[in-house]
């Protein structure tokens, strides 16, 4: 073409001008995204890598004792019992509740479908303390009867069984909402249309739910169950309270009492293995169905129960579940608080509350910013490497807090040793809460990143392209288009992070700087260490109430009609 061939030198000039100024800058500014994402992923992956690497060092004497005296065995036994028991019971509660509110249009159904999520707001250890009364008012009389009938040996066993059962029951009561929410979505959104079809083909609603609803909702339910199991792995306060030896308890025992880092790391490695097995099991159980379970329109499948007995059954089930999972613990806390209020001046409570809330907000915002960065980087570079990076960042969520603690401290020690920067640990964990925020980031990147990624996926690619073509850079487009469009997921993620960080116990307990006390550590300190239940019930109540507010806001956010 004449236009090109004729002005070759001029074009070459303009070309070189463009490529030396605009383009180099352009590639630099975009590669900053990639490097930043890689750094965040590194921050999260390095501590975990250190745990894995230390696992292959020759074991210490303490570790040989842990294995030799059967301690490891009992940690594993306790962990597996809790996993199986809580997983099973939480599934029964969660699927049962979802089933009832899906199928039956009984009086109070609307109220229950929201209220049945509230137990989520109760931190597991708070629930454990609130159920403390069961030990004296239920267990001890039972044990006396058992001893009288069967002798002291049987009582010893019965006592162990009861403690495990109570722990399973209490954990299942506050963790079942994960399954409940997943199952509700599963029944009404994923399989709703198929259930309707099945009914048109002449099957009853109940039979349709069994033959179509459950199988189709299975991947979602198993996803919810996975969260329950990970929470059980993470549990510290409640297990300590019921005297159940789990891997998480073991890690802290080795760390605190034995002061043996090596065996703590090894236990952390074993815990990672268990989590790995859980995740593999989840993947196998979900199988291929994982991918085609896309969300459809929400369907209302409920019909009025035909008999009074049906009404009573549905109402009664929901009422009982809500009573045991929420009303009773809350009532116990309130009762204790009525004693506590006499002892504590509310003014004294304000400073830990403010400190705790600001810490949760600060850490939440930092993590959210990192997650936002990752989500946008993954959008700019939709390739495999970015997908792997963002998956790496999500790894920490599966790991128990105790493992993250060990990983963070070991990695910091390792790095400060090799850089001979002695003050690193001090700066991170003693004089500032930077290390704690980093640990929160390792553990809670998933609840921040997952909704943002989903939100990003809802923004059409053409938005980015339109913005770029209208002359805005990748940063400019981000602040003008993506950030405002992600308002809802950002708010949702912030609330989840805020509540999660507020109630987080094991990480905060170990890694918070000495003068930073949160509601969680205060509750734990007062209730568990000092056994001042009355005083401890006040921070516990604040935790529960902020959790409830979080659940309500989230519920509203989800229910809000999407923007066109």
């Amino acid at each position, binding site marked *: 073409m004449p236009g090109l061939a004729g002005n070759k030198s001029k074009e070459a000039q303009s070309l070189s001008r463009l490529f030396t100024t605009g383009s180099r800058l352009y590639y630099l500014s975009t590669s900053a995204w990639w490097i930043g994402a890689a750094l965040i992923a590194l921050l999260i992956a390095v501590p975990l890598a250190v745990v894995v690497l230390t696992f292959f060092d020759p074991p210490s004497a303490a570790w040989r004792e842990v294995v030799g005296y059967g301690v490891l065995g009992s940690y594993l036994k306790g962990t597996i019992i809790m996993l199986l028991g809580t997983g099973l019971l939480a599934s029964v509660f969660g699927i049962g509740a979802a089933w009832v509110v899906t199928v039956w249009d009984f009086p109070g159904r609307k109220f229950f479908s929201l209220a049945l999520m509230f137990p989520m707001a109760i931190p597991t250890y708070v629930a454990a303390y609130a159920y403390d009364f069961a030990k004296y008012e239920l267990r*001890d009389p039972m044990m*006396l009867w058992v001893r009288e009938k069967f002798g002291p040996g049987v009582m010893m066993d019965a006592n162990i069984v009861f403690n495990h059962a109570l722990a399973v029951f209490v954990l299942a009561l506050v963790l079942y909402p994960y399954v409940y929410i997943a199952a509700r979505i599963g029944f009404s959104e994923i399989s709703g249309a198929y259930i309707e079809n099945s009914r048109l083909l002449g099957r009853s609603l109940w039979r349709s739910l069994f033959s179509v609803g459950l199988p189709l909702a299975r991947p979602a339910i198993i996803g919810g169950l996975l969260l329950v199991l990970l929470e059980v792995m993470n549990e510290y306060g409640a297990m300590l309270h019921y*005297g159940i030896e789990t891997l998480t308890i073991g890690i802290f025992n080795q760390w605190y*009492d034995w002061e043996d880092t090596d065996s703590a790391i090894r236990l952390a490695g074993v815990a990672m293995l268990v989590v790995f097995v859980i995740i593999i099991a989840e993947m196998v159980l979900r199988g291929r169905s994982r991918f085609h379970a896309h969300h459809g329109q929400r369907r209302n499948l409920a019909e009025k129960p035909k008999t009074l007995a049906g009404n009573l059954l549905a109402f009664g089930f929901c009422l009982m579940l809500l009573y045991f999972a929420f009303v009773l613990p809350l009532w116990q806390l309130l009762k204790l608080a009525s004693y506590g209020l006499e002892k504590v001046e509310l003014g004294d409570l304000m400073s830990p509350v403010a400190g705790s809330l*600001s810490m949760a907000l*600060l850490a939440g915002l930092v993590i959210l910013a990192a997650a936002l960065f990752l989500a946008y980087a993954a959008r700019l570079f939709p390739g495999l490497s970015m997908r792997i990076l963002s998956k790496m960042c999500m790894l920490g969520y599966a790991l128990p807090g105790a493992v993250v603690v060990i990983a963070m401290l070991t990695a910091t020690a390792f790095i400060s040793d090799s850089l001979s920067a002695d003050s690193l640990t001090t700066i991170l964990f003693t004089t500032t809460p930077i290390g704690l925020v980093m640990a929160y980031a390792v553990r809670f990147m998933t609840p921040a990143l997952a909704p943002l990624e989903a939100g990003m996926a809802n923004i059409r690619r053409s938005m980015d392209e339109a913005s770029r073509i209208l002359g805005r850079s990748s940063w400019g487009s981000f602040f003008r288009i993506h950030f*405002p469009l992600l308002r809802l997921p950002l708010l949702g993620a912030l609330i989840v992070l805020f509540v999660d960080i507020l109630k987080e116990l094991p990480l905060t307990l170990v890694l918070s700087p*000495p003068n930073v*006390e949160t509601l969680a550590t205060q509750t734990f300190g007062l209730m568990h260490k000092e*056994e001042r239940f009355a005083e401890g019930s006040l921070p516990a109540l604040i935790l529960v109430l902020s959790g409830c507010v979080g659940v309500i806001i989230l519920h509203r956010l989800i229910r809000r009609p999407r923007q066109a």
Partner: protein
Amino acid sequence: MNSKFHISFSAVFFGLAACLFLPKAAISKEVTIYSHRHYEADDVLYAKFTEKTGIKVNVVKASADALLERIKTEGKNSPADILIAADAGRLVRAHDAGVLQPATSSKLQAQVPKNMRDSGNHWHAFTVRARVLIYSKERVKPSELTSYEDLATSKWKGRIVARSSTNIYNQSLLASIVAAAGEKKATEWATAVRGNMARPPEGSDRDQIRAVAAGIADVAIANTYYVGLLANSPDPKDRAVAAKIGVFFPNQDGRGAHINISGGGVVKSAPNRENAIKLLEFLTGPEAQASFPETTSEYPLDISGTQSKLLKSWGTFKADKLPLQILGEKNSDAVKIFARARWK
């Protein structure tokens, strides 16, 4: 989001952040305590101290380990004047770490018995707690009880409850047994007592006392002040528990009952050394000593001199004279022995 929102949001956010990071403004006449003790009765005492001396008291409450770590890292710039811990082992550890300095004061010399302070005066106790046997008044005669060692005999099969070995009080008790009888005997003791338990170790000292009251077991190992906390509880159920049980001080024919202390040491870099010593003198002085039995049910330094009705009702006792710093030294042995005994 409009700009007004941005501004107010930033203001709140940075304000909150500042709360976290900014150091407290300094006041000249003050003393800063790093304390492991969480009693509000302590705060009342500090207020009295301020009233008497005009010295303002700042308190940082956290676990003793964290506080020690913090003093170490703050180095010369540490604002801490006194480190207060709730057991001797931690104070020994602080002294070993070199963060404490001697507090030379004739008042302290006079007010604190020799075995309740560091040989070099690096730390001084101000309260005493005894680890005792709590028994059921219904099912056990005090004459059946003798010593900690006696709990290992078969007559107590299925009748004992005790808390987890992760607790520092149990570790200190076992450390005192290691000091008295050696590691081998101590291991045998821990294994036998574990075998005599009515149920696996769980819960707190208070839970053990409750178990005795409920009839699950006949004897519990617990600290004295827990009985006090139950007896003074606002919950009538707790008071009923306290009424059902008796307190027995073991080893009265031998080395005496195991005791531990709460105490404090002046930090080496203390900016207000004189004020710190004044505070220690106050805590070990007559006014504070008289208040501890009433508020926290702890023993004063002069164990037999207490006027507390509750403490007196348990009777006087002979305390183990073992230098308390030994408890710190034998702690790691105790932890390992508990693991071997499967006393979880």
